[in-house]
């Protein structure tokens, strides 16, 4: 039952594909958002917003603190927007870019709840990137485990995300992204009980300091919303 509940809340899953790189000494302020569109009232207008500040501590490690606000689905609608989590996120670059055939990295995060009795969550991701000429492919394989709280999911959940983009210009890079939350690793859910989403995403820079990433994901299974608008704006300094 916990599995089904978690799948009915697809906004909990982050819609971002992480590169396995960090930039030493760089600060960044980041704001991200998700807005779901669906015919079901408890899946429509589900929203998630994050504001984060991050820093590249070394050439191998970047860390970020973020606060998350979201609406939560209820039986017949969604709740008001409320602050639900803080998160400590870390990215480890495991090799210089281009040294090996595949660039590897690691993502480790802990999400602490701001609402009483909600569970915290540890999350780990393997980050892999391969560029071929002007086409960049990134794969993230993720695992997470809820801890504490009264309704913590006892299972280790998993998922994957994929991004392919064409490096057309620094200001505009068209691409596609795919997200899958297959939920409990030890249980095999039907395709429609898993969340599958894919769609076009556009990346680029507005100027030297500001980067964007905006896209629309189409739901490809029953558990996913019919549509989801996603965006990330980063200010680097």
């Amino acid at each position: 039952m916990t599995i089904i509940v978690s799948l009915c809340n697809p906004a909990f899953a982050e819609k971002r594909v992480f590169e396995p790189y960090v930039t030493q000494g760089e600060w960044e302020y980041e704001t991200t958002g998700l807005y779901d569109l669906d015919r079901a009232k408890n899946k429509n207008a589900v929203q998630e917003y994050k504001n984060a500040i991050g820093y590249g501590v070394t050439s191998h490690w970047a860390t970020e603190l973020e606060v998350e606000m979201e609406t939560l689905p209820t039986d017949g609608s969604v709740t008001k927007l409320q602050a639900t989590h803080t998160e400590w996120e870390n990215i480890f670059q495991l090799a210089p870019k281009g040294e090996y055939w595949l660039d590897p990295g690691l993502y480790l995060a802990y999400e602490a709840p701001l609402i009483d009795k909600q569970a915290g969550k540890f999350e780990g991701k393997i980050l892999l990137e391969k560029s071929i000429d002007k086409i960049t492919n990134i794969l993230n394989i993720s695992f997470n485990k809820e801890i504490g709280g009264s309704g913590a999911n006892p299972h280790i959940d998993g998922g994957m995300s994929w991004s392919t983009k064409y490096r057309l210009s620094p200001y505009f890079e068209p691409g596609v992204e795919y997200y899958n939350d297959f939920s409990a690793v030890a249980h095999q859910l039907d395709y429609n009980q898993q969340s599958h989403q894919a769609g076009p995403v556009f990346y680029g820079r507005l100027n030297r300091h500001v980067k964007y990433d905006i896209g629309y994901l189409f739901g490809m299974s029953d558990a996913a919303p019919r549509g989801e608008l996603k965006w990330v704006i980063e200010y680097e300094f």
Partner: protein
Amino acid sequence: MLVRSIVYLVLGVCIWLPVLCLAQTLAPNTIVIKDHQFIPPQLTVPAGQKIRIIVDNQDPAAEEFESFDLDREQVVEGGKQITVFLGPLKPGTYKYWGDFHQDIAKGIIVAQ
């Protein structure tokens, strides 16, 4: 079925990663940063093979080796060196610059 496939994929990545990640021994080229300029301003390298470039920052201030053509963005602290791995590159001209001093820190890598 999908879960099993993904678990196999993860195991495959873990097993094959060390093989895929075999480092190649490459003779390095060197670019020096001095007075916020890249020396030499043009570096010619062989096309079609991996290249290793040492960026030696002799200034006290940090600089960022950045290039959209080469898809690179690496900070090199003052008085330190970094290694930039590139290629294999197609024959052509690739621009790069120092992000912290864009007006004067400019360079070109020519692959031929």
